[in-house]
């Protein structure tokens, strides 16, 4: 069973990479996360070396690669990690032995390692693999045997990351995209943590065939997550205030096919709120605005494609930073375009039927001002979810919704997420955790006889 409707032509296996597809690269077990567009010319920089991403094309997602020192230059090669049986020394499966060692004999005098940088360089020149260097470092460490099993493991891992870095090939989903941004550029997504995003989608009842109104000022993350759930059905209306659509560069990380992209439409809040039976004069005015908008749309798409050029021509890799630098050469990554301007008849249908869900993620806007305008566009009994990085605007919004009797089932909540380290005899919550993933106000639109339309 394939996960997306096959496009016309040969069926694309979404679990295998192909040329031009967007991937998430996890370098050294989460130390660095990089989005890349796979093409013959795309490269990845680790430390001071550059690696071609060519070997990653056609591989199943989830494959692991390790840096190997080649004859001429190092390259990325598929790596199958050893299974449990021949890897017992890392303490994975066996119960921790009675540990008699401790750190009383370890002195920090920088003399424990007898191999010098020159020695290691020499080994490299002779073609030693990363793993061989790590073993040599361990053999030449005066203190390794005195370390506890746990810290031996840590030592080995640290050296492996440096001398034999690993790259994990990840399929971009809203989960991994949100996590990557939250880790690296939380401000770009308004500090929206993955669990909060998941709650927005459920609380707004995003499901196939629904028409979802989204006010997305978090770079397109919410729009993309909604489109992923719709799977090429229904519609996402990415609404914006004023004349310029909000950037949604993140949506390109999703690898959406045409079917999904077609369902992502843009429309200004003005056009959505305009009274249906407007005079012809008003219509023409709107059309003027539309032409201007489509121009600005073109501008956006231009900058989008240059970003892609930049991605593939320079090194095919973006450390999540969409830079709009101009670069004239190189192949573009062919990604179908999401976010066309909503056609008139679609807007009309939205107005007649109402949206079936509303999600607002505008972390710098006043929630109540937005909700006042957007909630009437929602059909009766439809659920909504509003995200904010601060509690207060949502509290005020909730209070006003109650006073105006616009909604029922109102709930103001904050998710709390804690990860655990689970190891034999060493299980405990992780030492560091995210303090806040933001706040969510959710509810259901009530019907009142005084409601308009």
């Amino acid at each position, binding site marked *: *069973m*394939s*996960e*997306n*409707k096959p496009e016309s032509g040969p069926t694309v296996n979404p*679990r295998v990479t192909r040329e031009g597809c967007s991937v998430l690269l996890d370098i050294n077990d989460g130390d660095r996360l990089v989005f890349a567009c796979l093409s013959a010319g795309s490269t990845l920089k680790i430390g001071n070396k550059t690696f071609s991403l060519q070997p990653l094309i056609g591989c*199943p997602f*989830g*494959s*692991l690669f390790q840096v190997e020192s080649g004859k001429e230059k190092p390259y990325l090669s598929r790596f199958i990690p050893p*299974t449990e049986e021949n890897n017992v020394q890392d303490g994975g499966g066996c119960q921790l032995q009675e540990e008699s060692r401790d750190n009383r004999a370890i002195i920090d005098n920088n003399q424990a390692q007898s191999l010098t940088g020159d020695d290691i360089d020499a080994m490299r020149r002779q073609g030693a693999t990363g793993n061989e260097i790590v073993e040599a470092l361990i053999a030449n460490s005066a203190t390794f045997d005195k370390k506890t099993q746990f810290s031996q493991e840590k030592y080995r891992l640290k050296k492996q990351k440096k001398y034999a870095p690993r790259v994990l090939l990840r*399929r971009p*989903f*809203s*989960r991994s995209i949100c996590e990557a941004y939250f880790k690296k550029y939380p401000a770009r997504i308004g500090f929206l943590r*993955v*669990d909060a995003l*998941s*709650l927005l989608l*459920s*609380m707004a009842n995003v*499901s*196939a*065939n*629904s028409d979802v109104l989204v006010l997305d000022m978090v770079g397109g993350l919410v729009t993309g997550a909604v489109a*992923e*759930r*719709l*799977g*090429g*059905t229904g519609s996402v209306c990415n609404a914006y205030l004023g004349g310029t659509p909000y950037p949604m560069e993140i949506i390109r990380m999703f690898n959406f096919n045409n079917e999904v992209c077609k369902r992502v439409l843009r429309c200004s809040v003005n056009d959505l709120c305009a009274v249906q039976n407007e005079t012809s004069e008003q219509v023409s005015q709107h059309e003027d605005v539309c032409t201007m908008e489509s121009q600005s749309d073109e501008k956006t798409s231009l900058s989008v494609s240059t970003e892609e050029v930049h991605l593939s021509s320079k090194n095919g890799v973006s450390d999540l930073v969409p830079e709009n630098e101009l670069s004239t050469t190189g192949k573009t990554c062919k990604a179908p375009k999401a976010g066309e301007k909503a056609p008139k008849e679609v807007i009309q249908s939205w107005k*007649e*039927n*109402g949206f*079936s869900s509303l999600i607002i993620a505008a972390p710098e806007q006043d929630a109540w001002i937005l909700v006042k305008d957007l909630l009437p566009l929602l*059909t*009766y*009994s*439809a659920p909504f979810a509003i995200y904010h990085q601060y*509690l*207060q605007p*949502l*509290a*005020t919004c909730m*209070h006003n919704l109650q006073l105006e009797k616009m909604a*029922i*089932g109102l*709930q*103001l909540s*904050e*998710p*709390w997420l*804690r*990860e*655990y380290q*689970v190891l*034999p005899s060493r299980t405990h919550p992780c030492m560091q955790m995210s303090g806040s993933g933001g706040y969510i106000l959710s509810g259901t639109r*009530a*019907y*009142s006889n005084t409601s308009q339309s």
Partner: protein
Amino acid sequence: MLLMDSSTKISFNRCIRDGDLVVVYERHDTMKAVKVCENSVLQNRFGVFKHSDWIGKPFGSKVFSNKGGFVYLLAPTPELWTLVLSHRTQILYIADISFVIMYLEVVPGCLVLESGTGSGSLTTSFARAVSPMGHVYTFDFHEQRAASAREDFERTGISTLVTVGVRDIQGDGFPDQFSGLADSVFLDLPQPWLAIPSARNMLKQDGTLCSFSPCIEQVQRSCETLRSDFTDIRTFEILLRTYEVREWKMDHLKVNDGNSTACPPRKRRQPSSEANVGDNASSPAVMARPSAETRGHTGYLTFARKCVS
């Protein structure tokens, strides 16, 4: 419940009909699922409600009883269903459910295996996530419970997306017919480690698994078993903290310019001093505080991904 076709889709033009499932909303913590039936009535502490009064009204309407009491009639969603379903077992709630769906990367078209079915709270959300092309196969070893779940899925209109099987997954594993076909597997079992080898065989390469366990000892053993064929093994705990919001008139205690914290009798200030006009009338402010009583633990969620060979 799900928008399987346009006739079931809620819209400004879709009113309540005979035979619809509605969620009767009294308060945020008092709701009930009711099948609308022309000649039927609903009786609660607010009085008697005639279903015939409901037909033709939009979803989300306020309807009145013979005594003038009122309730709201809502279109069912998986979230509302979780709050109204009959508890045959402990169920998963919205925070865990949402996180599981997102972390398992369940999208339309996926094939999901679940055990046990329990009360079908999570199953309903899985069905929403895989629709319209995917399918959920859910298994419970309790025959009666499986039958009740089947009835519920008929009632909520998701039975085309969900198949309920009676099977002891811990003892017998998942049926071989799903071998290598599952995108995701979800386990809510007392001894999940017994089912993990079978789950592994069902999963596609790079497929995702989640095990929900209330106790850390279960997590410990599951993780030990997972380490052989899975990668990316991560354990989480998720809770939802809710806030109470109210408007509050704060007493503005005047603090002396000196360091005294006492509140002196109000004196007339010289108009030349800093603008204090309006300070005397304490202004109402909307404030939020965490709800006093809250859920402290539901279960640990352990996720893993099948290794790619």
